[in-house]
């Protein structure tokens, strides 16, 4: 029973990691940029989610607003920060990204204050019985459900629609895709929009669990998501999903049984090291 409960907690955590890391892997797959500032968008998503929920009383509305606003900001970041650097070494974009991340953190502190914000009336606190005495809160159920729905929609988009196929073609070979009349720039905008919106959704989900969004909320996410996409095989969507779930579950059991030896982050990275020793290329080949 406890094992099943811990597995469930691991899946909840994995679902959040998946939503954060997916945007990162999409952007890396398309542009070869390690978008560290992605984690700041995750934090911003949490802030908007809390503020709009507190103002309107509707979590669903807040989630949509948060995803759209952060998605648009993602496009802006690409347009203003990354696009001018595309011809340069990827290191330049990485440094720009780290700078952006720090600027965002300090910006949150100035705008929203250093204390952090909470839901005035935390939503979805009640519990559901999954049968056999396995209880889970509605918020955790929503997180897993949301992740499954969002990722299914994404899978459908990328394999069944013209936009999705154009996207995959651009990832594989931008030049040939372009010669077939695909507007590469549009694909990149779409990519940043979707990736950033997913991070925003993850931000709202995390605040549902913790009821606290702080300026530094993205700090752990920034490097954990990098570890996950490396483990997944840089640029592989499938790999990222599997890696996110695996790390979520390893952390869940690890914090309880060996947490006094290795803390949660150390566990995740120890797992990463061991996994890469066995499979240096990551779990999956890039799509």
């Amino acid at each position, binding site marked *: 029973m*406890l094992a099943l*409960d*811990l597995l469930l907690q691991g899946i909840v955590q994995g679902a959040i990691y998946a939503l954060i890391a997916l945007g990162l892997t999409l952007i890396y797959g398309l542009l070869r940029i390690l978008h560290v500032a992605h984690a700041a968008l995750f934090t911003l998503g949490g802030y908007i989610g809390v503020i709009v929920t507190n103002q309107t009383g509707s979590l669903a509305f807040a989630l949509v607003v948060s995803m759209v606003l952060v998605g648009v900001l993602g496009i802006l970041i690409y347009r203003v920060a990354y696009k001018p650097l595309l011809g340069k070494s990827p290191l330049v974009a990485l440094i720009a990204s780290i700078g952006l991340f720090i600027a965002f953190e300090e910006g949150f502190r100035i705008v929203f204050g250093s204390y952090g914000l*909470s839901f005035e009336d*935390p939503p979805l606190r009640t*519990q559901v019985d999954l049968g056999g005495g396995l209880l889970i809160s509605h918020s955790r159920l929503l997180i897993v459900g949301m992740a499954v729905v969002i990722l299914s929609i994404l899978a459908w988009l990328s394999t069944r629609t013209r936009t999705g196929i154009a996207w995959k073609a651009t990832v594989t070979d931008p030049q040939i895709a372009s010669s077939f009349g695909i507007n590469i720039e549009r694909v990149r905008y779409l990519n940043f929009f979707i990736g950033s919106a997913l991070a925003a959704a993850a931000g709202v989900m995390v605040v549902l*669990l913790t*009821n606290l969004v702080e300026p530094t909320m993205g700090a752990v996410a920034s490097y954990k998501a990098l570890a996950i996409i490396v483990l997944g095989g840089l640029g592989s969507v499938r790999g990222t999903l599997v890696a996110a779930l695996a790390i979520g579950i390893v952390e869940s059991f690890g914090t*309880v049984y060996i947490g006094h030896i290795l803390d*949660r982050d150390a566990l995740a990275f120890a797992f990463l090291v061991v996994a890469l020793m066995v499979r240096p290329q990551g779990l999956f080949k890039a799509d």
Partner: protein
Amino acid sequence: MFKVSKLFAAAVLGAFAFAVSTIGQADAIKVGFNVPLTGFAAADGKSARIGAELAVEQVNAAGGINGRNLELVIYDDQASPKESAPLAAKLITQDEVVAGISGSYSGATRAAATIYQENGTPYISAYAVHPDITRSGEYVFRTSFMGEVQGRAGAKLVGEMMGKKRVSIITLANDFGKSLEAGFKEKAGEYGIEILGEYDYSIKDREFGPIVSKVKAESPDAIYASGYFFTAGPLVTQLREAGVAVPIIGQEGYDGEMFIKIAGDAAEGVIITTSLDRDSKDPLAQAFITGFQAKSGYPADMVSASTHTAVLVLAEALKQVDPNDKAALRQAIASTSINAATGNISFNKLGEVKKSVQVQVVRDGGWHHYAVISDPILLAPPEE
């Protein structure tokens, strides 16, 4: 001609203003104050600064130090040792303060304590908990509890006063949490407490799903959980959300309005060991509590109360000696025996405070009196 006279008037006026200001400055007794006003600890820094300023205002309103005003020289140390050490040197050599007070965390306070000790200048740590701070030397004092002391009080509270014998421990894995855990476990056996499980988390953790599941499976009578408001708020929220209804016992890291704001309804009934009794009838504590609320716009917390206390300790010592005789000042602080917002204060030979532990509970969205623990043997801080 007109121009010249105007210039002359300005010069006279300027000289006059300068003269007045230097008279004021020469008269005031300067005390160094390092505090995190920016960075991750800025929230506590704000409370600390207001608590210290309130104490200075109260001392000066009551006649100052034998007629001379007390003045704080305040620097932002960002809770960083890299900032606090040079600031300590600057306060001692350039600002020529008679003593220093730390309104900061352990790292910054330890680094500054070494500098104060080397320069033979008294230094009082208001609420930093690391054991090595007072071990810097005889010039360094502390007005807050060490973790071990509070941990021992926690064991008495849980095992004897509340009668809860089966306990799960959740520990913040830093010097604060670990020393609390050590103190609690040291006395647990004495009060008949059986420890069902021990779990560590890092200061970055906000999601406690797995630990909550495991603790729930143990079904303890009570949970002893260390942390700061930004970890304890999410932890208590998640414990209650999972249906864990047993008492949760925390410490002064929870103390303040932010914990209640984050945990909301889940905060109700949470009990902590701390330094400030909100419902105190003592006029000095009451003056502090109402004065702080008026000055800051939010209720007093442990950090502000401890900083307020540290300033009062120094002010009382300054009244007894020539403020420029630092050795005499150190001696006066060492033999302190005063009543402050956090209780009756005196120090042991290491410079650790001896005072009662206040037990507070969250009721109707605010901190309230639950009990007091004043067992001098149980609460004796280390002597070396």
